[in-house]
């Protein structure tokens, strides 16, 4: 942000009036941006505040400006204490499960989509176009529409309560296939031909040339698919009935269910879990941000 301001000012040159005008508008821009950022961050800050005070006080007063001393006990409880008698669904275990789901989705979807797009774009398949449109049409059928048959197949294959059952049925991605197809089609034909003459077969071309060229696109897809997998709720809820594969998103719900039981729900603990659930997607976005923008806007060819 500071850099940008500096650049705009420098670009404005030595003319004084221009500089003053620019500064005014910059202040306006910043005011809007700061207000927007506060609006976004406020709920998160409330979560933090609420997890520092006893749960009973939240029931009484709701969010306030008071900072209590319960933060550390809540964090410890959230991370290490189990929510049921099995003792296998601590916060850390759920975090790990969410991670497996997010990474499994991201990596699996990217691999499958790239290979599908590669086949469609580079091989003379008789029904390539038809296959592509068939894949594309599945965009019209989101998980919620086909969840019953999907569940049934998974169940009949005996994949309930397994990582395979959680990840594989959702691993085909029309969106990613579509993006990779568009990207592959923009790779110059001569590159393929030069590689052929250089003795690179289909696998070598894919690994040595196409994958490295797609790295920004892969990063972009990784963010989208990781967040998608991380935030899955409905599908894991159906497939997983045992505690040891429960994800963070499911866990938060379980804790607040205490409310329906008549006791005071463990707000502090679930707030910490909520923060924990937000962190990885944020970190992934921060880490891949530069590539993400590049992947969707530029082409490096």
């Amino acid at each position, binding site marked *: 942000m500071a850099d940008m301001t500096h650049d705009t000012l420098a670009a404005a040159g030595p003319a004084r009036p221009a500089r003053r005008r620019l500064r005014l508008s910059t202040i306006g821009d910043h005011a809007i941006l700061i207000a927007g950022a506060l609006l976004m961050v406020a709920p998160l800050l409330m979560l933090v505040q609420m997890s520092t005070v006893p749960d009973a006080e939240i029931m009484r007063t709701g969010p306030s400006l008071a900072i209590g001393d319960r933060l550390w006990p809540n964090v410890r409880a959230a991370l290490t204490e189990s929510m049921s008698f099995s003792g296998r669904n601590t916060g850390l275990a759920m975090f790990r499960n969410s991670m497996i789901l997010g990474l499994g989705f991201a990596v699996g979807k990217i691999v499958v989509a790239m290979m599908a797009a590669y086949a469609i774009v580079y091989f003379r398949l008789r029904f390539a176009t038809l296959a592509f449109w068939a894949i594309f049409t599945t965009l019209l059928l989101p998980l919620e529409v086909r969840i019953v048959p999907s569940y049934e197949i998974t169940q009949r294959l005996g994949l309930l309560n397994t990582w395979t059952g959680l990840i594989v049925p959702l691993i085909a991605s029309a969106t990613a296939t579509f993006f990779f197809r568009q990207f592959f089609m923009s790779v110059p034909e*001569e590159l393929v031909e*030069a590689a052929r003459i250089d003795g690179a077969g289909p696998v070598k071309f894919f690994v040595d*040339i196409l994958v490295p060229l797609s790295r920004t696109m892969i990063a972009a897809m990784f963010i989208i698919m990781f967040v998608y997998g991380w935030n899955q709720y409905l599908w894991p809820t159906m497939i997983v009935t045992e505690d040891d594969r429960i994800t963070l998103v499911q866990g938060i719900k379980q804790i607040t269910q205490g409310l329906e039981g008549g006791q005071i729900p463990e707000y502090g603990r679930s707030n910490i879990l909520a923060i924990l659930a937000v962190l990885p997607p944020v970190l992934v976005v921060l880490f891949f941000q530069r590539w993400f923008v590049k992947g969707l806007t530029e082409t490096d*060819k």
Partner: protein
Amino acid sequence: MASVTLDAVRKVYPGGTEAVTPTTLTIRDGEFLVLVGPSGCGKSTLLRMIAGLEDITEGELRIGDRIVNDVDPADRDIAMVFQNYALYPHMTVRRNIGYGLRNRGASAGEIARKVDEAAAMLNLRDYLDRKPSQLSGGQRQRIAMGRAIVRDPALFLFDEPLSNLDAKLRGQMRIEIRALQRRLGTTSIYVTHDQVEAMTMADRIVVLNGGRVEQVGTPAEIYHAPASTFVASFMGAPPMNLLTGRFESGAIRLDHGPALRAAPGGRSGPITIGIRPEDVRLGEGDHVFDVDLVEELGAHRLLHGRLGDQHFTAHVLKDMPVREGRQPIALPDAALALFDAQSGQRL
């Protein structure tokens, strides 16, 4: 090193376009052959069939003694340089040049040695660890050359390799490529639409038009004895003057002009008469050249105007005094080329 033989090679694209009509041609061992013609005449198609990037519809293609119709491009012992270089953008120059060797299972030491050799030959030593995007067009073209020569193939194929460069660099690279080819002695087929490139680089030129070979010959033959009006007007800048005329009472006569010379053996009817702009003699003779524009080109000048009622261009050296307006001009008999008015073929 190898010769290349095309035996009635033909190409029909799936859509039904006949891009190359049956063509028979032999490229000699070590020769630099240029395929030249206007855009869309089938040059690239012909070259790509030789490379194996395009299926051959009919006919037989031999590289050396081997029939290669069904041989994979990688196994034809060829290298190709593309118009847009087709470098691998994510690889360093070193890896770009060495990629083909690596795929063929060369040892790391051998790759390093050969890449270094090729880089030295092309003045690329200082850039080996850069990416292609950090280099200029001319340097990228050199990398593409390096990728071709490093494998020491039997045949180089070039598809308009200089078209993306500016004029000055193009002239320079022309000489570089030609010198390199002389030095290596590798048989080369070079595609271009630029007749200057064809004239300056070729051992022999093949002029293509509409998927057909119009003429095969050395640059001098093509220039001085064009086989058709197409070749006459395509090769040379400015092109040969083509004038309409007729056989009349045992002589050849320009339309609305005096007799030029005796006609060969009792012909009659219309004819096309060609003469190179530099073969005319200004200030003498019995034709009238009405000059309306003088183009100054330093070492020489071009005079544009009309002869009779037909467009005409004359080329004169810089010491010759010139002026606009009507002036006498001579068209020497020996410099005239006669073409059939209908077919355009040389008589």
